[in-house]
């Protein structure tokens, strides 16, 4: 059973499983780290906030991502791209897979992009592809609970 706890971050709130480690760095506002499994990659969720130019929109960023991801990642496959909402703030969710050559491991990732009040809010979920079935419902719940402070 997953026990959830509230997390209040700078400019956002969400819920996370209470047994996930919470970390932060100067560059990444929060990292949630799932308990270790026997997978080569520890499942994690990163959230960043960065100021952006006033005219920047999520559509602009998604367009740039499309151009560069294909060449930047080995065996890149975009599996889903759809609009998402954090409360009333609209964003874009991009789910993709690629191969980490260092360990020859298939990686699944999902990135949420929001721009609100000239701040880029990103949410990056990362997992070994074998973990997808188990992790997906947890991530869905986290993403569903996400609210940006308006």
């Amino acid at each position, binding site marked *: 059973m997953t026990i959830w706890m509230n997390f209040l971050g700078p400019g956002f709130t969400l819920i996370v499983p209470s047994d996930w480690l919470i*970390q932060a760095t100067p560059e*990444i506002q929060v990292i949630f780290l799932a308990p270790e499994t026997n997978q080569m990659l520890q499942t994690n969720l990163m959230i960043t906030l960065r100021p952006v130019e006033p005219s920047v929109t999520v559509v602009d960023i998604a367009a740039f991502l499309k151009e*560069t991801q294909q060449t930047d990642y080995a065996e890149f496959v975009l599996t889903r791209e759809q609009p998402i909402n954090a409360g009333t703030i609209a964003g874009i969710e991009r789910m993709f897979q690629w191969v980490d050559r260092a360990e020859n491991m298939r990686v699944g990732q999902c990135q949420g992009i929001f721009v609100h009040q000239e701040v880029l809010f990103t949410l990056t979920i990362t997992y070994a592809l074998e973990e997808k079935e188990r992790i997906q419902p947890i991530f869905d719940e986290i993403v569903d609970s996400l609210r940006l402070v308006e």
Partner: protein
Amino acid sequence: MTLNELDESLSEFIQMLTIFNHQLALDWDKLQRDWIECDIIWKDDSMRENFVREWGDMKNAIQHYRMFESIRYIEFLWQRKQALDEYFGRAITHFVVDELVLHQAPVSLAGYELDNNTDSERLVILRSQNVFSRSLLPDKTVSTSDTMADYIEREDTQLSDISPHVIRDPVEKPGNGIAISSENSAQVVQNISHSNTIIQNISIKNYLFSYNIAVRPLIIEHSLKRVTFDDPSIGFKIGVSLLKMRGVFARWNNAIGGGSSFDAQLNMNAGLDKSESGTSFGLSANSFVGLKLNLSGTQWAGRYVSLNGLESKLGIELKVQNKIAIENGWPRIRGSLPSIGIVTPLSPGEAANLMIALAKSAVGLFRKQSTT
């Protein structure tokens, strides 16, 4: 109703509410799964639309209660209960709410380590079942002879007297590690993280004289100033901050612990760094004049606090860094020319590059090394 009856009914009610919250959590997981399944099965179906219309508000209400009210409400009840315990002269049980609702989440603390040699910030993750982040409480003076166990034990006894609301301004970092900030008072801060990492600072008013000794085994420590990440290293580092001056001419705080300030800063450092890649000795200096925006927050979950911060600078930064490094037995001079940087908001392309770098970091940071 007598106070005894009130006490009894309050206890029963707390127990019921706790069970209810747990039950709700269970049901919520199931509801969430059902919801997802519905979403998959019912595509373009009016029945689904009706379902969402009729139950969407309920879902939002339950979610809101779970996110914002359940813990607060139990805390409120527990405060009343403790008041009664105090009235009756009984031993007060603290933090039961944590155990019931938060179930002692193993929280780790991430902090900033200002590298005296390179003047770059490093990530230091302090892992402890007993959450060391309480060192964020202001105006704490910690004896340098304390062990971590001593510290935690004393903090445990002191914590009950400290309101969570006194936690403020946690991102001030007058030196290495998570600093306990009080800009105008002398303080001795000791941060002990992983059992093999010790960082000590002595800060006197706005001047910082510090030394740090960091013996770093395979703990997570990466330089996050670059897109690529160093491997964890084994080594030690001794750094001396020759001069650290900071003038804050104006400051505007926000409600969550961050704020803006107009700063002038001058740092001079000398250090010896020995790691697997070699030994280096260097001098560095940097100065900054400009506006600093510090968007930060504390997460208050019972008594556990997690620090996170976003700092942006808009101003002129001058950096000089020179090191003599002994690598593979040969001395080399490594240095940088003075540079002036102005930090600006991201363009769409830069934002996209940031996201790509983040995605790679998320793998690089938490990938286990293959043993084959």
